């Protein structure tokens, strides 16, 4: 069955360099630098990436950073907590927009 998301496509990510090799190379250099150990550890960065993957709901990223987090030594407990952080921010983001709703209600109401 055709689908927009196809798991083997993750391995073809490098194809994005085919018609724009310089941009791809710049992206890779930046990407690799971002995930290198710095003020944050590689594991912390992998867990942030896992949480963001859920926030942006990217199936490729979820696959990649589930493996990536495990291979940086994260535990399933830590990974589950990271996803809850993403979920809480998404839920909170909806909820905090309720203030806009209440402001509008106040403006429109007598």
């Amino acid at each position, binding site marked *: 069955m055709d689908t927009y998301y196809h798991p083997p496509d993750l*391995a073809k990510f490098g194809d994005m360099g085919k018609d724009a090799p310089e941009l791809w190379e710049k992206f890779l250099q930046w990407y690799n630098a971002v995930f290198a150990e710095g003020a944050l*550890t*590689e*594991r912390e960065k992998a867990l942030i990436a896992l949480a963001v993957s859920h926030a942006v709901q990217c199936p490729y990223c979820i696959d990649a950073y589930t493996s990536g987090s*495990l*291979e940086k*030594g994260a535990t*399933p*407990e830590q990974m589950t907590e990271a996803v809850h952080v993403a979920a809480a921010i998404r839920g909170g983001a909806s909820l905090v927009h309720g203030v806009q709703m209440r402001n509008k209600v106040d403006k429109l109401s007598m």
Partner: protein
Amino acid sequence: MALPTLLNTRSPLAAPAAQRAALEALPLPRPFAGAAASAGHARLVPTGTTILQINLGKRCNQACHHCHVDAGPDRTEVMGDAVVEACVDLLAATGIPTLDITGGAPELHPRFRDLVVRARALGRRVIDRCNLTITTLPNYAGLPAFLAEHQVEVIASLPSYAATQTDRQRGDGVFEQSVQALRAFNALGYGREGSGLVLNLVTNPVGAFLPASQATLERDWKRELKRRYEIEFNALYTITNMPISRYLEWLEQSGNLDAYMTKLVQAFNPAAVEGLMCRYTLSVGWDGRLFDCDFNQMLDLPVEPSAPQTIFDLADTARLDTRTIVTAPHCFGCTAGAGSSCGGATT
């Protein structure tokens, strides 16, 4: 109740030839020999034998899901007396500094203690690859004290400092028994600074992924085992799971085999070839046959035909030093990422 060894369940993968065929059928991007050649090792050769690793047999009180030996309580293969004697003779005749004893649970072998005593009397470093739970069996409670008395280095398996992960790989209740065993070793001085008694732990990933950084995990493990259980140890070794026996079966059944093998190949680290353990290890099977490593032993890939084939053909190791090491697709497991060996990461 049926035991989950491949042999007991009559799995086709109980046969090493079937395992080799399953691995060779995979469409890997390149063969291992080609990868090694690209790293400057067109012919993979030994650097000299410094470790004699002997597998006393497949008997084990556990039956872990990832076991590359397919060991378990139902296995009957054990090293015969003549092979044990030949191993001791080889140690006496050569300067091989280390005897590494593995299995199965090697301590179940009736000649285990005799072997330890004689190797130590020859002045050799002796390693016992211990599954920890063996020490909780009634007849083996004195094992840690025996190992301490003879200053045997203990390398103990513990995949995780969390009970859930450990029990998932090694069986229900294994973690709790392992903690009990580690406390017994600590009480004797094992793992304590200045005691001279070495206790190293081994962790394999609980699934189809590569191990994390050994140094990072060691820091985590020392902190967490101390904080949670007051347990100390010397070093943590990370070992990549090998696509052999029960781990191979799990990879197939879980639909992970292709992706895992591709991951191993894509993670090929040229720098890991130099320190491959097959270059300095001689592996002896329970039946006395010779192999380049314990993984080749389980796949029934003996040393190349021109080399001596059994321990009985071996007066010294000189004729082995010129052999070409036998490789196959599983060898990518030892060169992926930071490299992997029975002594942990290799780069």
